[in-house]
């Protein structure tokens, strides 16, 4: 172990993470278990959040503002985006606060610190899957045909996870040092909700704003989620590819920053 220069290679990092995979599993398991144990509503909670957002959005944007919804009823249109969005917002917020929330672990035991934001970002997947089942119910209710495209639905959460974790690692490590970061996270998430085509379809954006929106990695991913549900909507593969690419870049920036500052966590948290 060299104190002055950390010569930890990528390989060593992956190797170590593999050795501690069980701890990672237990962190996810703990988060999921505690979440459902503590709330009276349990698993219902996973549904309530996107569902009621959908109801409110439908009333204000669908009914009053007459927002176009790409050929399907507005509830289907918005819910198909709100399920991945709710996961993303939760994962960023949760992993962004995860290091400070686990400060007792950071100062008392050694393990790859990466496991904390990663498990925090991963544990929301359970909520995501539960909320997804309601989507089928809503689709059946509005007579939307269930196509094979839906098979893509669960896989699209993978780039979303990496994006959320990338941001989560940046926020959580800054949060250790600067405690006011935690107040900016909800604010940033709120901004993202409006600049991402969730309430509205991307088609209402005029050029050049549509090109600009493509730089937001959420655009392509959320749009792809939606295209697996909406029968007349083609998946914009290029848009998705750009989003995935940017997500991976953000993930690696997050990982790089996290790895760079992680050795100070125990001293300053």
């Amino acid at each position, binding site marked *: *172990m*060299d*104190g*002055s220069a*950390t010569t930890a290679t990528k390989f060593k990092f992956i190797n170590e993470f593999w050795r*501690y995979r*069980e*701890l990672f*599993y*237990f962190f996810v398991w*703990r988060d999921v*278990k*505690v979440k459902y*144990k*503590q709330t009276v509503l349990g698993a219902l909670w996973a549904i309530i959040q996107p569902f009621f957002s959908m109801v409110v959005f439908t009333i204000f944007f669908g009914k009053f503002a007459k927002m176009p919804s790409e050929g399907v009823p507005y509830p289907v249109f918005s819910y198909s985006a709100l399920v991945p969005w709710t996961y993303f917002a939760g994962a960023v917020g949760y992993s962004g606060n995860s290091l400070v929330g*686990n400060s*007792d*672990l*950071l*100062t*008392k*035991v*050694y*393990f790859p610190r990466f496991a904390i934001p990663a498990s925090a970002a991963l544990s929301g997947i359970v909520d995501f899957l539960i909320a997804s089942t309601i989507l089928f119910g809503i689709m059946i209710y509005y007579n939307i045909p269930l196509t094979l495209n839906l098979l893509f639905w669960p896989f699209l959460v993978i780039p979303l996870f990496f994006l959320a974790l990338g941001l989560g690692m940046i926020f959580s490590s*800054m949060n250790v*040092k*600067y*405690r*006011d*970061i935690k107040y*900016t996270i909800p604010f940033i998430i709120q901004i993202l909700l409006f600049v991402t085509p969730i309430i509205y379809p991307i088609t209402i954006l005029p050029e050049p704003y549509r090109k600009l929106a493509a730089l937001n990695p959420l655009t392509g991913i959320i749009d792809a989620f939606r295209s697996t549900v909406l029968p007349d909507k083609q998946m914009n593969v290029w848009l998705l590819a750009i989003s995935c690419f940017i997500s991976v870049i953000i993930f690696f920036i997050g990982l790089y920053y996290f790895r760079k500052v992680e*050795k100070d966590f*125990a*001293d*300053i948290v």
Partner: protein
Amino acid sequence: MSTSIIVENLSKKYDISKLRKETQFREALINFSKRIFLRGESRKEEIWALKDISFTVEKGEIVGIIGRNGAGKSTMLKILSKITYPTTGRFDVFGRVGSLLEVGTGFHYELSGRENIYLNGSILGMKKKEVKAKLDAIVAFAEVEKFLDTPIKRYSTGMRLRLGFAVAAHMDTDILFVDEVLAVGDVSFQKKCMDTMKDIKNSGRTVIFVSHTMATVENLCPRVLLFEKGKLRMDGRSADVIKEYIAQFGDTVPQSRFDLTSVPNRQGSGEIRYTGIEFLTPDGQPKERICSGDSMKVRLHYKVHETISRPEFYFDLKTDVGARVTTFGTALSGHEIQTLHPGTGYLDVDIDFLNIIPDRYYLNVWVNTCDLLITENDTIHDGLERVAAIDVEMPGSEHSYQRLKESGGAATKGLDKWWGAVFIPCRWNFHGMHISEESKQNI
């Protein structure tokens, strides 16, 4: 014998200004811009928590680390456990490491005992299979069989401690780092911990053990490292190192009166301060010579600066290696003092029969308020370590304590003091001895 731990010229620096300031991102931005535009020098306050530490530990050694608060003991352990990093220097640890810096790290109160065993085990670096195989032993050790599936928020503090220690005790590692965890819990828990530590000692594992309890260190560790202000001051046989450590507190020479008004390093919130201690005869005269079995009076002088309620006054007696012989306390004797307003005064403790073995004893004195209802914590108002000393001598004899010490008779060894701690009132009768009546008179 192969080497287990190598530490070479290791130092750890903390930049206090960094730790304290710039905790807000906006402040960091402001400071950053100031640095650019004003070219102001940012002031640095550095502290070397560890400075140039080198030592090696062979496989199977049990090494104690002692030193005052802030000497760097825990930082050393944290570096060896890879929790924090050294600023310069290097270290190597060969073998599977387990570190126990706290009992029950990562326990979640909503989860059941069983779930927490798995969680805590994996946090300590155990495999799930391993925990599963040892589950019964862990549960039996912790004595929580009946509550295994109850959330631990319903456990008592003692049960949680036992559970945490049970998991840690079943870690199967080559090297173990232990930090002061044995200092918590009730007597039976402490005994359990000590027994486990002794088992570990005999199991051939390498152990580094940080503690403030000299008696424990002396019992467990043949070799001790003494840290002082971040430096390794001494490394050697436990008895020698502990003596050296104790000597740092300054030689408190026994006398009948101690002035406590200007003692440095005192703890507590300061509403009340001890101003002096006197050792007196029952009728209030200074007691020059104290013997086992004597009657005496201990007078504690104090000054109250701010009104306090329900203060409890204490002092204890410790041997020169820090083993506590007894504690005197107003609350221990069943007294409850209501309120003290600013002013001065004294308390007398009348001891009818000083039944402790001849030796030199040191006193710690403290006052606290025990607010169990409000904070579950003691508030310490004043606390002084090793501020007075008494030499208890042999009764009815001109043999002084010092002479006994020279003859080697009073040599102390932690809790296993040669002669124990208690002096039982007794009379020796020599009538039946087969010696002349004249000799009997002279015994």
